[in-house]
């Protein structure tokens, strides 16, 4: 039996919600916990969807963050296939898509993000897919079996990861990127060139500076028309052009929103009874001294721990260093920190012809971020350098003949 009748409601059912519900119990929340999720499945890992899952190396079973029995044991109630349609801040209640209303004492917005839709003719044809959830991945998997030619619209991490996967299973792949280079928004020129080179070596065709203007076919997709007039044959099209945070519910009740629900370092929104965490939240980051919205699992997990503490009236500052990963072919990229606003990039290792290097991003002489490709030791070094504000001579960081472990020791 639950010790009190306080109600916590969590909206969303992915990484943030999964962690928040469990963390609430760890923070000794003794009342009820209800998770309202519009997904048909219990929370699962999304990163493998564009990596091992598509090639069949990971099964759907393995994707679940925790088995359903764990939530049952912890008396966490899940309403799947259900949306929260409305929040009433005055009466502290939510209206569900099945018409029911539920009262809350504390509310958590873990509504995440949705794929940005492409507004060109033909996107509704069979064989055109986005990639965000298990249903999308399942549909792509089905489509792959009998198909041999894919066009990927968008040269970001998800597009490139998917390209790598499709190549691995022997499919012809062409990537269309509207900007001048792949990964333009997130990385340095040399790193973009690196990924361009490796994908080309692996047999992917990459076209930059061209955007898709139309998808053509009768019923099923047959090709993609580009801005330069060219038509590329395809029987599978995957669109990966970014995501938009789901902030409509928050906006509807007048919470502060600006590309994400605005929260402080305790994951609290402008309503003291409501927290937000994960892809939908824009938090005040103490390391970078400004507000940022992150799209990553580590962020969803750590921020949810903070949000759970806040719901239990405890303070647990969220100030973890952002980090990301991406696997393509034999390349294991780990990114430490955010490179926004950098004024100089210094390399360690051969970015032009090898498959292992580090790009150090500097701002006024200090390391703010690093892209580490097949360089795990340097990844730790980078995390330490960024979060400790200690420094090492740039010449040493760039000098690949000094062992990374020696540099780590120098920092200790």
């Amino acid at each position, binding site marked *: 039996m639950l010790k009190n009748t306080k109600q916590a409601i969590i909206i969303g059912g992915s990484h943030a919600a999964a962690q928040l519900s*469990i963390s609430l*119990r*760890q923070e000794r929340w003794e009342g009820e916990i209800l998770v309202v999720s519009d997904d048909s499945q219990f929370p699962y*890992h999304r*990163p*493998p969807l564009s*990596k*091992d899952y598509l090639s069949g190396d*990971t099964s759907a079973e*393995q*994707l679940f*963050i*925790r*088995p359903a*029995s*764990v939530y049952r044991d*912890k008396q966490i109630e899940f309403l799947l296939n259900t949306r929260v349609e409305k929040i009433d801040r005055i009466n502290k209640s939510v209206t569900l898509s099945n018409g029911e209303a539920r009262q809350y004492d504390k509310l958590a917005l873990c509504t995440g993000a949705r794929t940005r839709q492409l507004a060109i003719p033909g996107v509704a044809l069979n064989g055109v897919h986005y990639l965000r959830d298990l249903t999308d991945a399942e549909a792509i998997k089905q489509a792959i079996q009998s198909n041999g030619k894919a066009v990927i619209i968008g040269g970001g991490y998800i597009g490139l990861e998917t390209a790598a996967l499709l190549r691995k299973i022997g499919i012809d792949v062409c990537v269309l990127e509207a900007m001048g280079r792949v990964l333009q928004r997130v990385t340095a020129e040399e790193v973009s060139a690196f990924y361009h080179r490796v994908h080309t070596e692996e047999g992917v065709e990459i076209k930059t500076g061209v955007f898709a203007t139309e998808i053509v076919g009768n019923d099923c997709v047959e090709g993609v028309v580009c801005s330069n007039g060219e038509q590329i044959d395809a029987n599978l099209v995957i669109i990966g052009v970014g995501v938009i945070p789901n902030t409509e519910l928050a906006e509807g009740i007048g919470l502060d929103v600006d590309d994400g629900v605005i929260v402080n370092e305790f994951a609290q929104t402008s309503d003291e009874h409501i927290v937000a965490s994960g892809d939908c939240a824009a938090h005040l980051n103490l390391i970078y001294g400004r507000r940022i919205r992150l799209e990553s*699992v*580590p962020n969803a*997990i750590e921020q949810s721990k903070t949000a759970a503490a806040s719901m239990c009236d405890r303070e647990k500052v969220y100030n*973890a260093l952002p980090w990301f*990963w991406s*696997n393509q072919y034999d390349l*294991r990229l*780990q990114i430490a920190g955010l490179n926004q606003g950098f004024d100089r990039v210094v390399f360690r290792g051969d970015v032009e012809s090898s498959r292992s290097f580090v790009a150090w991003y500097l701002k006024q002489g200090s390391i703010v971020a690093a892209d580490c490709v*097949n360089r*795990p*030791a340097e*990844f*730790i070094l980078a995390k330490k350098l960024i979060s400790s504000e200690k420094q090492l001579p740039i010449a040493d960081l760039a000098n690949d003949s000094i062992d990374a472990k020696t540099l780590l020791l120098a920092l200790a």
Partner: protein
Amino acid sequence: MPLIKYVEHNGTEHQIQVSNGQSVMEGAIDNMVDGIAGECGGSCSCATCHCYVHEDWVAKVGGPNEIEEGVLECAADPRANSRLSCQITVTDELDGLVILLPESQY
């Protein structure tokens, strides 16, 4: 079901029955053992499931492969008996396994 003992950095012990075929990381996550985060879901990418295998078990559990070795380097404070718990599959052979958890995963 094999019994696995997880020992937190502060000495707290958890005796947990983990099904054959599950990973040591999954056993911890499913039972809310603090000290293993498992952010990448067991795809050998994040190093947040880092653990130390008790010395009596090192031989039986075996060592990491090359990819895991690389990822392990990213863990805080790796040692000779370090493994990624998502890469250790539970079998009857491992009944009684003792896993020591690091101080933190970051």
